[in-house]
Each structure stands twice: as structure tokens, then as C-alpha cells.
């Protein structure tokens, strides 16, 4: 399973400084879980905020989307191939080449700030995966186990 999780991570279409996944820790047909530690020297701390570095909310959403929707989506697409059901034919057709994805919508509420050096865990639960669209309930917890933010994010396999 560890190997499988590493393969999924290697399929991600991101790289530094815009990769916000350190490790996937669990994945199944119903959800995914992963972690990321915001480095002290992430590029955005220089400007957000001046002299008061706090991780931008949009970056927290990006981190949640990369772990909770993109990694999870790659897994679900791989599963549909493996099971040879090809139930989601749109997904199957469109992912024969490099994966092309797009954020479809996000609605997130924020509760706590994330400071440089903090480790977060993202937990995602599937609402549905149909017609190439994956909609998930996603939450982010800090190292103390406190809720940082939560909401829904959906992504599409792009044409």
C-alpha cells in the first residue's frame, strides 16, 4: 500500500514551489488522508503578511485540493482501470494521456491560522465521483488535532 501511495504522489502534476503534499497516509474508495509541513521559507511568507508570515487561505485550499481531490481522484481513476469496469468512461478516455484536471468549485470555512513550520493533515471524504467530477468534503487539522478549515471542494477531469 505504501508503494501505491507513493505512485499516486508521483502522478501529481505539480512541483515545487507549488506542491503541497509530503505524504499520502491512507486512501480508499471512500476517502483519502495526507500530510504536509509548511516550510519556514515558503515563497509566499515574504508577502503574506508583511513582517507577519501566515499561510494564505488560498494555499490551504490548494493543499486540501491536492491531497483530498487530486490524489484521491488519481486513485479513483486508477481503480476504475484496475477493476476494468470502466464505469466512468469519461474518466477513462480522458486519462489515457497525462492527467488534465481543473478545480470546479470550493466552499471553505476557516477556523485557525497556520504558521510557518506547521504540519497539517488533510482528510477527504467522497460525496460523489460521476461523469468525471469528484466532489468531496475536506477538512484540515493541525498537529494538535485542532480543526484549521473545512468545506467542500470539487474537481473535474478537463477535456
Amino acid at each position, binding site marked *: 500500500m505504501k508503494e501505491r501511495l507513493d505512485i499516486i504522489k508521483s502522478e501529481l502534476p505539480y512541483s515545487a514551489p507549488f506542491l503541497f503534499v509530503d505524504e499520502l497516509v491512507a486512501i480508499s474508495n471512500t476517502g483519502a488522508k495526507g500530510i504536509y509541513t509548511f516550510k519556514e521559507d515558503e515563497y509566499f511568507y515574504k508577502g503574506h503578511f508583511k513582517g507577519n508570515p501566515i499561510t494564505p487561505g488560498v494555499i490551504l485550499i490548494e493543499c486540501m485540493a491536492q491531497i483530498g481531490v487530486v490524489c484521491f481522484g488519481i486513485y479513483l481513476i486508477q481503480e476504475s482501470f484496475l477493476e476494468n469496469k470502466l464505469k*466512468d*468512461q*469519461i474518466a477513462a478516455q480522458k486519462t489515457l494521456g497525462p492527467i488534465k484536471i481543473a478545480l*470546479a*468549485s470550493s466552499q471553505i470555512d476557516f477556523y485557525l491560522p497556520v504558521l510557518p513550520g506547521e504540519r497539517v493533515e488533510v482528510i477527504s471524504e467522497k460525496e*460523489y465521483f*460521476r*461523469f*468525471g*467530477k469528484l466532489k468531496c468534503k475536506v477538512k484540515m487539522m493541525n498537529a494538535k488535532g485542532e480543526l484549521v478549515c473545512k468545506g467542500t471542494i*470539487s474537481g*473535474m477531469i478537463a*477535456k
Partner: protein
Amino acid sequence: MTQDDIYTQLKDIIKIYLPEDVSVDKITLESHLINELNINSSHLVDVVLDVEDAFDIEIKDQELEEMDTVKTAIAIIEKKLNN
């Protein structure tokens, strides 16, 4: 259920997903869901999921691809209901 009944119900679903700059009056039988009504591909999935619930039918991937106008959507729903 007549075609008119399907049309009325479908219109009620579509209007939820219309962008603010497209008025409900723009929905006609000939309207192209994406090009004319400006529904994006993500909301098109939402429309179809709502259609499945409202009419208690299951739409296949291939059928979603065929659903380009209001008219073809009605035809697909009608076919499913008669099966």
C-alpha cells in the same frame, strides 16, 4: 409524463445553475446548455445528477455527452422514462 411536464421540471433544475448574467427567459427548447446558457461542465454534472433524482432515472456517461441542448436532454429523459 408529457414532454411539457419534463420541460417544466427540467427548466426548474437548469435555472438553479444559470450564471447571474443569463436570465431564465433564455431557456428555450433549442438552447445549448454550455454555449448559450453558459453552464460550465461542472454544473452540467450537477444538472444531470438533479435530473436523475427528480425523474428517478440513471444517466450514462455517453448520454451526458449527447445532452447538448434542452431538447436533446428532454429526449433522453423521455426515453428513460418509457423504458
